[in-house]
């Protein structure tokens, strides 16, 4: 503790009483379940009440590594990486340009444009997914007709080659608003004096961007990238509502967790919920997120050391 405990103006019991509900919920609904995921990954618990379950040691992990098609596992891992990197890079690069454009005084109607780009955040994942399913309908949908003008055709969400790209696009479309807003906040905290001073020195727009904006905005971008990495690794909702739980071409680790644990949108076949095995996938996802953030932090550190 860096600081001496401050003398409270209020009775301690009242403070503790106020803190209790949040702490209670955080422990029972947050921390305990998180840790229990690890324990459940060693069981064959089903998810249907009343079905007997037991500890089965490492069986789930054995099944994960040795009793499933290694090609499928690699496909899922590859999808996870492509989805994560794709979403993170595209979202942050475009969001950076958007926020620069919409922070610039030369653009009229900035408020409106910001509002439009933030709108999908408000609409939510289900509405977003359905809207894009409709727009990317391969049967004479508007985008299908548009690309047909150039002699192209695509199955969009229904085709193995394009499904993952469509899912990434929809995810970026939906979450762009958040990155933009956070970037805008970062930009507004950069003092105008710096730009004015630079203008007197006669610097170009690009120089201003390179020597003032980017270095000062970097901490914000960094936060954005971290949020996008963790967020995209955990997010499966767009996948669920557009391509469903059936097609392995768009399956990621987090989508598999829900598939095994809750059997949502798994096609017309009725499969038993396997929450123990689902917990095993959740643990693998956890390790995956841990490694991804570690790699990113390393990369950032090296870059900082180099400059």
């Amino acid at each position, binding site marked *: 503790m860096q600081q001496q*405990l*401050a003398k409270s*103006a*209020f009775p301690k019991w009242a403070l*503790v009483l*106020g*803190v209790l*509900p*949040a*702490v209670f*919920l*955080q422990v029972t*609904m*947050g*921390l*305990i*379940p*998180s*840790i*229990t*995921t690890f324990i459940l990954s060693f069981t064959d618990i089903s*998810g249907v*009440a009343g079905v007997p379950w037991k500890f089965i040691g490492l069986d789930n992990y054995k099944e994960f590594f040795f009793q499933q098609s290694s090609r499928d596992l690699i496909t899922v891992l590859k999808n996870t990486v492509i989805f994560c990197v794709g979403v993170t890079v595209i979202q942050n690069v475009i969001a950076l340009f958007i926020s620069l*454009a919409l922070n*610039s005084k*030369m*653009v009229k109607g900035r*408020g409106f444009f910001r*509002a*439009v*780009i*933030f*709108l999908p955040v*408000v*609409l*939510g*994942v*289900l*509405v977003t997914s*359905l*809207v894009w399913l*409709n*727009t990317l309908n391969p049967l004479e*949908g*508007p985008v299908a*007709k548009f690309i047909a003008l150039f002699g192209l055709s695509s199955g969009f969400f229904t085709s193995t080659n394009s499904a993952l790209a469509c899912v990434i696009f929809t995810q970026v479309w939906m979450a762009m608003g958040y990155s933009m*807003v*956070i970037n*805008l906040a*970062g930009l507004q905290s950069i003092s105008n004096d710096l730009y004015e001073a630079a203008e007197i020195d006669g610097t170009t*727009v690009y120089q201003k961007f390179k020597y003032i904006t980017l270095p000062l905005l970097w901490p914000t971008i960094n936060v954005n990238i971290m949020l996008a990495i963790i967020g995209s690794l*955990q997010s499966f*909702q767009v996948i669920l509502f557009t391509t469903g739980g059936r097609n392995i071409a768009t399956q990621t680790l987090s989508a598999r*967790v829900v598939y095994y*644990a*809750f059997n949502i949108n798994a096609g017309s076949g009725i499969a038993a919920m396997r929450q123990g095995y689902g*917990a095993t996938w*959740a*643990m693998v996802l*956890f390790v995956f997120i841990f490694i991804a953030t570690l790699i990113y932090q390393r990369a950032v550190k090296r870059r900082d050391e180099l400059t």
Partner: protein
Amino acid sequence: MKKNIPLKIIIYVFIAILMVIYLFPLFYAFNTSIRTKLEYMSNPTAIAKSFHWENYVQAFKKANLSAYIGNSVFYTVVCTTTSILMAIFLAFPISRNYLKFGPVLLGLFMIGMFLPDGTIPQFQILLKLGLYNTRLGYMIGGGGTPLLMFYVYIKGIPKEFDEAASLDGCGYFRYIFKILIPLMKPAVASMAIVTAISVWNDIIRAIIYLSNKELYPITRGLYVFQGQYQVDMTQQMAALIMVASPIIILYIFLQRYIVDGIVAGAVKS
């Protein structure tokens, strides 16, 4: 600025493309929703010649939206209010460093991000407690606690207020409600809206935890409807627009508050 005409053109073209990508799907959804099924089947992309509001009437009845909207409002108000209040009561003593174990508590909430996903055990716990398929069970593990933003915000409120209030004989809870919350207005408002949006739009918990139609929020109603009436795109889009429009209207009025609120909040932290 006059010397940057080419740049300006590039920026405007960029924005124009974005606007098309962001607004066209919504326009197209609306266009689909006001056409007859036959018109749509003969040419999905034609612009509607006349308004067929009967799709809305049909979809409203079939999707049973009137029953679900009350649930959604209930969940949103209850979850938002409780999670904001809990976060304030939590953030205040930690931020003021009034509690010995304050930093531990802070860590307790921050560490959550770095632990495995607890959805499955949470489901098992709520199931064992008999809270599966109840309003309480649906809401209890849902809302997050926007602790950090309040933590930072309260640090900016002078401590003298606390002392003056306690000298005047103002109790702790009265102090929070009468003095602190009014001082935190912008932070509370923007966090409340952000929380409300996420509760309103929740669909995964609604699928996992609710089986009784009487308890469905509106998103779950839309989800069931689209599975049930796959064939009729026009009615599907009508239902979708009815689900989305309340929140779009609210957004239009509160837009500055939401976007600027988040911007302001992010700057402070």
